[in-house]
């Protein structure tokens, strides 16, 4: 068993991991900044390094529709997209989850137009929160890779059967070279058995998927999806324990960082957490009681884990790269909504940050922590707003 550490571009590392998951069918449409992932996969298929079928299509709508057909025949399927591409898939996202097909997709996080922006934020995936897909967020490239076999194993479980989206920040992760461990094929094979669905499309035994449901029965289909997502919470915890046994790396629905005695808790998802950890390290040297709760699984939503982690804090700061226009950030709303009926409630502040690829610095985060301490922050605000141009 040799796991070689390699210096790889994030996109390449993801493509190699997809290959190691023994995917049967890939269909995707290139779009910046996801392009390198699908170029690398297309190259691997062309070079005969994998037996996967790569089906070329004319749009993201068709890419995901193709995978619905493939997944229904029992194939393990993969796609990747971002931003406008994910928006174009909107209708198909609900078909995939409604037909209970465990498609796995890397969503490279990018802002949505207009105005046109190709840079990173998380508005795209947060905007499809309610599509019935599992959503994981990666802090670094190792996580972006490891969450893929974990996603397949959770998604393909007979009690779950939901599609899964592994989100990674565009450019910040996809175009960055980092040390990554791509495990030996035998290890991935040991962890991830082949997909064996009970019902498949087969001309010899015809079935209809996603058939008509009238008002007397539609609610029950939606409840089945809801129930499966709740079950995915426990299933994820089981699967990451198995992952740790095989690969030696530990994951959870959330990750706690220096939270033991923290009075101020910062919450976020994705690559921003890396910067936040440096901030917390610096603040801890100044004896500030600050910690981080990183959300890896946004759906299933780890409400109890979040509650446990923040109930004894004085103040919670939610930093996120999205906004529900006219309201506040999506993660902030979710956290506040389940905290409302709890006894111990810290003050919760939210910040939309790093929109459209704006860099988030250590100074930015330190600044907002000190503003919250001085009670100068509003309940929700756009961080670093350039008022001089408004």
């Amino acid at each position, binding site marked *: 068993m040799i796991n070689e550490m390699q210096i790889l571009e994030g996109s390449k590392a993801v493509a190699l991991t997809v290959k190691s998951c023994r995917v049967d069918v890939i269909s995707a449409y290139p779009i910046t900044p996801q392009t390198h992932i699908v170029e690398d996969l297309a190259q691997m298929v062309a070079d005969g390094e994998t037996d996967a079928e790569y089906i070329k299509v004319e749009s993201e709508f068709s890419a995901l529709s193709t995978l619905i057909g493939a997944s229904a025949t029992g194939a393990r399927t993969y796609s990747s997209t971002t931003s406008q591409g994910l928006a174009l898939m909107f209708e198909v996202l609900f078909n995939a989850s*409604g*037909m*209970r*097909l465990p498609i796995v997709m890397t969503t490279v996080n990018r802002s949505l137009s207009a105005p046109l922006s190709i840079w990173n934020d998380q508005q795209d995936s947060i905007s499809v929160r309610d599509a019935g897909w599992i959503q994981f967020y990666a802090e670094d490239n190792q996580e972006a890779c490891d969450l893929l076999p974990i996603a397949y194993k959770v998604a393909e479980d007979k009690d779950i*059967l939901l599609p899964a989206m592994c989100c990674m920040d565009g450019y910040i992760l996809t175009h960055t070279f980092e040390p990554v461990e791509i495990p030996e094929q035998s290890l991935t094979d040991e962890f991830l058995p082949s997909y064996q669905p009970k*019902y498949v499309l087969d001309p010899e035994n*015809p*079935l*209809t*998927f*996603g*058939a*008509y*449901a009238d008002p007397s*029965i539609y609610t*029950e*289909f939606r409840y*089945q*999806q809801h129930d*499966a997502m709740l079950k995915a919470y426990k299933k994820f915890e089981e699967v990451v324990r198995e992952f740790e046994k095989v690969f030696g790396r530990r994951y959870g629905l959330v990750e706690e960082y220096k939270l033991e005695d923290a009075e101020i808790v910062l919450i976020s998802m994705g690559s921003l957490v890396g910067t936040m950890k440096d901030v917390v390290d610096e603040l801890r040297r100044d004896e500030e009681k600050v910690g981080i709760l990183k959300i890896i699984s946004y759906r299933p939503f780890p409400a109890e884990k979040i509650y446990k982690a923040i109930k004894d804090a004085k103040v919670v700061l939610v930093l996120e790269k999205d906004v529900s226009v006219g309201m506040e950030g999506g993660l902030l709303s979710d956290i506040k909504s389940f905290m409302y009926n709890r006894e111990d409630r810290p003050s919760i502040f939210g910040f939309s940050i790093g929109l459209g690829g704006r860099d988030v610095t250590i100074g930015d985060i330190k600044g907002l922590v000190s503003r919250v301490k001085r009670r100068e922050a509003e309940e929700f605000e756009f961080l670093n707003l350039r008022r001089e141009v408004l």
Partner: protein
Amino acid sequence: MKLLPGGIVKPKTTVVNKTGAWRTFIPVFDEDKCKKCGICETFCPEDCISIDENEFRHPDYDFCKGCGICAEECPADAIEMKYEEKE
């Protein structure tokens, strides 16, 4: 019967599901006017009009959705669309 997740169903659901229940107007065939030309049967999008031993046409009301195409096409005006009273 328990629901299969994903809305998965076996074939022939259309035999069980009587789509004629969707109908608002019902075609009524007048055998005195009928010329037995078969145009109604040719145009019926549900393919639910059958021929009896005397070559008269009869819609299958279990599946006729009352679209009215047969009445529109009939050259002898032998088909009348009537509002269907339902309990």
